[in-house]
């Protein structure tokens, strides 16, 4: 058979494949059994703590992040109840400030970034046809580090030590002088845990994407979801160190050992914090929402039954957005004394970033026009995303204007804008992605009828909750206030926003019920229920511990749509040890074999050692030294175990690997 390459891919030699051999069912099943013995991690509690299966870890990640979404949502509901009427006394300032800070911290650091990472950790290996992720133990460590952060924040909150200086922790308010006690310390360390988790996930996704793609999946054939994950991972690598520096090295040090980085009385600079924080904080927004855009493409393709319009444009838009996002941070600081000329540069950059985003939206709309849209819940969420996100994008362009921004900055207009962008741009695609990929993770379909309820209530609720806030902001209502006077006239619109929030809560409740019911007793999905095109659909649902019996051979951008007949695969990887195929970064030619590690307790122990270090450092700087010693011991243990794993071997020759089933 002659392979057909992806319709619009860059010229590449067509691979001539040998004629397909008849499938030996018995052999196949034996291989599968052998692979399962090799790749399955032990069961029981010990197995639960030691597993390095990227799917188990990612599933935990997703569930933990969803719990955080619920927690952040409860906090949002509390705020909406407090603000529903003027001069309400449900929450006093002390409680309210903790609640809104925890809401922002939870949603940004413990829900949005982790869940987007987790979707990548689950699906990137499947989408690139790999047996596992590049660094399975690092992956497990990242999850536990994140979990320590989650537990730490919420235990602190219930001990009345929840952070209360805003999720942006502006200095000097968050400094030792104006925030005594441990509330802000909790914030600084929670951020540290999530930075480490995000960096671990990013490194894993980068290496998996660049070095573990199935043969034939050259860079120009990578699925757009994976492109988005790759770009975002690089952004994490560049952005997270900024907040690590800001929160851990500077803020925590200011608070623990009086370094005075941000104390003007001692020659420090209060504005420095904002620069370092937003140098991370603005890319952060795109770190959350580019994966959302990456989810839109496969949904649109699958439910329009055509390959996406403008693959190249979409990839380039992804990359340019990633670049530009690092040049926007000052637009959070237009009200500070930064010279006008410098600010205008950031106005231009902020408007510029609308162009790649616009291009992506135009490409999806073009795909819909020439496709045959089928309005499943997943597809409806894409429409909801377009409807809602475009409003947020347009108010974003308005906010790029320095003069208008100074009117809207720090008001409910901005609260509205950021929720339109993040809920519209990230949460709606994410919900669509749940409906789309739920069968792959659980083997069962989500209920479509409940899905429609979920969708309509969500879109209506979000818009009713957040649209009035635009008007409130222009009407003078600043953000982060726990109370307002009746004479302000803000009452009716706040009540309306609260009503919208109630609808959102109902929608999320329906989603949770749907997920619980469908996981237990939904319709059985089969490997590819949507007749979609990606490699993740080329294996069983849920995927086995080893992901694929044979590594697929990729001949185009849409492997399951490109090949006529069965998907070509290669054989030759050993079944009796955790062998994976490493391919070249650009063309994905087989390069060498690599042996992945077995299950291990060390990642878990390492996260505990780190937890003791950072949490202890709040109470005494000596904890850093003690923790450092503990961490070194754990590294020794981890390394000793790893050294017993054999080195990689070179693949003998490329041709001998290429066979077809």
């Amino acid at each position, binding site marked *: 058979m002659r392979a057909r390459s992806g319709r619009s891919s860059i010229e590449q030699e067509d691979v001539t494949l040998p004629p397909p051999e008849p499938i030996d069912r018995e052999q196949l099943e034996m291989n599968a059994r052998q692979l399962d013995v090799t790749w399955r991690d032990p069961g029981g509690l010990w197995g639960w703590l030691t597993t390095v299966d990227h799917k188990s870890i990612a599933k935990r990640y997703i569930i933990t992040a969803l719990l955080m979404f619920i927690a952040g949502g409860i906090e949002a509901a509390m705020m909406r109840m407090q603000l529903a009427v003027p001069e309400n006394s449900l929450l006093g*300032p002390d409680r309210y400030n903790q609640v809104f800070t925890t809401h922002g911290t939870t949603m940004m650091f413990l829900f949005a970034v982790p869940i987007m990472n987790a979707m990548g950790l689950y699906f990137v290996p499947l989408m690139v046809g790999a047996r596992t992720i590049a660094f399975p133990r690092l992956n497990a460590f990242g999850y536990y580090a994140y979990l320590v952060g989650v537990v730490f924040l919420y235990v602190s909150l219930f001990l009345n030590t929840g952070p209360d200086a805003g999720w942006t922790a*502006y200095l000097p*308010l968050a400094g030792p002088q*104006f925030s005594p006690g441990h509330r802000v310390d909790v914030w600084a360390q929670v951020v540290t845990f999530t930075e480490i988790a995000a960096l671990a996930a990013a490194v894993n996704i980068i290496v998996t994407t660049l070095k573990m793609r199935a043969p034939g999946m050259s860079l120009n054939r990578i699925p757009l979801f994976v492109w988005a994950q790759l770009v975002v991972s690089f952004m994490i690598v560049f952005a997270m160190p900024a907040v690590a520096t800001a929160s851990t090295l500077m803020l925590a040090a200011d608070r623990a050992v009086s370094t005075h980085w941000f104390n003007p009385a001692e020659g420090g600079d*209060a504005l420095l914090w904002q620069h370092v924080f937003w140098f991370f904080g603005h890319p952060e927004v795109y770190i959350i929402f580019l994966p959302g855009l990456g989810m839109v493409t496969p949904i649109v393709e699958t439910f329009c039954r*055509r*390959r996406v*319009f*403008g693959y190249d444009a979409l990839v380039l838009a992804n990359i340019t957005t990633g670049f530009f996002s690092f040049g926007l941070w000052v637009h959070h600081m237009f*009200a*500070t*004394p930064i010279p006008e000329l410098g600010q205008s540069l950031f*106005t231009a950059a902020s*408007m*510029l970033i*609308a*162009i790649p985003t616009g291009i992506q939206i*135009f*490409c999806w*709309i*073009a795909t*819909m*026009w*020439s496709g*045959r*849209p*089928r309005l499943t819940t997943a597809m409806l969420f894409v429409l909801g995303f*377009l*409807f809602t996100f*475009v409003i947020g994008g*347009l108010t974003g*362009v*308005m906010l*790029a*204007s*320095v*003069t*208008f921004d*100074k*009117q*809207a*900055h*720090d*008001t409910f207009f901005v609260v509205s804008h950021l929720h339109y962008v993040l809920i519209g741009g990230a949460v709606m695609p994410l919900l669509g992605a749940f409906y789309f990929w739920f069968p792959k993770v659980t083997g069962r379909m989500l209920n479509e009828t409940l899905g429609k309820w979920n969708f309509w209530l969500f879109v209506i609720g979000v818009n009713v909750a957040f649209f009035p806030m635009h*008007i409130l902001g*222009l*009407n*003078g209502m*600043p*953000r*982060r*206030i*726990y*109370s*307002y*006077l009746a004479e302000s006239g803000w009452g*009716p619109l706040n009540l309306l926003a609260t009503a919208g929030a109630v609808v959102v809560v109902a929608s999320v409740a329906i989603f949770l019920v749907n997920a619980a019911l469908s996981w237990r007793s939904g319709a059985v999905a089969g490997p590819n229920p949507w*007749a979609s*095109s990606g490699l993740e659909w080329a294996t069983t649902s849920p995927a086995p511990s080893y992901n694929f019996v044979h590594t697929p051979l990729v001949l185009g951008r*849409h492997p399951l749509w490109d090949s006529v007949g069965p998907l070509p695969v290669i054989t030759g990887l050993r079944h009796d040890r955790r062998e994976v195929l490493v391919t070249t970064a650009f063309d994905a030619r087989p390069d060498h074999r690599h042996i992945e590690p077995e299950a291990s307790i060390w990642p878990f122990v390492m996260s505990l050692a780190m937890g003791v270090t950072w949490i202890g450092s709040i109470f005494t700087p000596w904890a850093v030294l003690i923790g450092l010693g503990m961490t070194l011991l754990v590294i020794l243990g981890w390394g000793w175990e790893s050294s017993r794993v054999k080195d990689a071997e070179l693949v003998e020759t490329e041709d001998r690997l290429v066979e077809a089933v």
Partner: protein
Amino acid sequence: MMRAGRLALVILLGACSGQQNALDPASAQNRSITVMFWAMLVVASLIWLAVTAAFLVPAVRQRRTTREEAEPAFEVPAETSRRQTRIVSAATAGTVLILLLFLIYDFGVGRALAAHPGRALTIELVGHQWWWEVHYADPDPSKIVIDANELHLPVGQPVQIKLVSRDVIHSFWVPNLIGKRDLIPGYTSSIFFTADRPGVYRAQCAEFCGHEHAKMALAVVAHPANEFVAWLDRQRTPAAEPSDSLATSGKHVFLSAACSKCHAITGVEAYSTVGPNLTHLASRRTLAAGTLPNTRGNLGGWIVDPQSIKPGARMPSNQLESRDLVALLAYLQTLK
């Protein structure tokens, strides 16, 4: 339905006038910002409508039931792809053009606003957790006026507000007059504007500054020029000696109780600058930075139990004999 429509109209119109409203300009500066806002809003709304129509049309036209079996993927004819490439390119070019126009427009407005207005009246504003201190400078030290939580300025004359903070970051924002400018410890910054309509405008701290960020308001009073001069002259007078015995004993209470530890009154042996200057307390509109109307009852409540009115405020509760409180209130009411 009619009533709902009327209600919506009232809500929307409510957004178009008021004491604390960015879209109800009372200065030339904010007028140009507002015009730009409406222009951007109209263009943005049209774009949103166009995008929404663009994805709803194919979604509705080609709609199929979800139960239908997934049909095989199909190839799009080359002609369709070429046509779509042209349309998408045109849409992108349109986006670039609109953004460019926005950019030029914004730079124009920004440039005009940043221009130094020449001779301006300088007023210094100091942010505190959670109140505002206002200084009217004068070469003659005896004519310096220190006020709190009210900013008075003349209509038709450019004013420069010098912004300073002694503790955390606050933000000065009078929606009707001008956009925000932060008060950042360690920095002195300025903002210029010219009120062109007399009135009382409400400003409120816009940068989260801790516990009582919500209750840190500032009344901005724009007077006709001559009234402003008269107001300033009145503020320059020290506190008058109380004429009746109740007020006189109130003054004694002020000096002997905790009050003078934090508050100053010009003309009296009270010089502390920790809390607001009370020389003309009775002439102010509100108490506790815009939290309560300035009435005798509210003042009494504020003195005795500020923590239930503004929890976390720096003002402590004061256990006063009721006789002393009555006297103190009588005295404070004379501070016109």
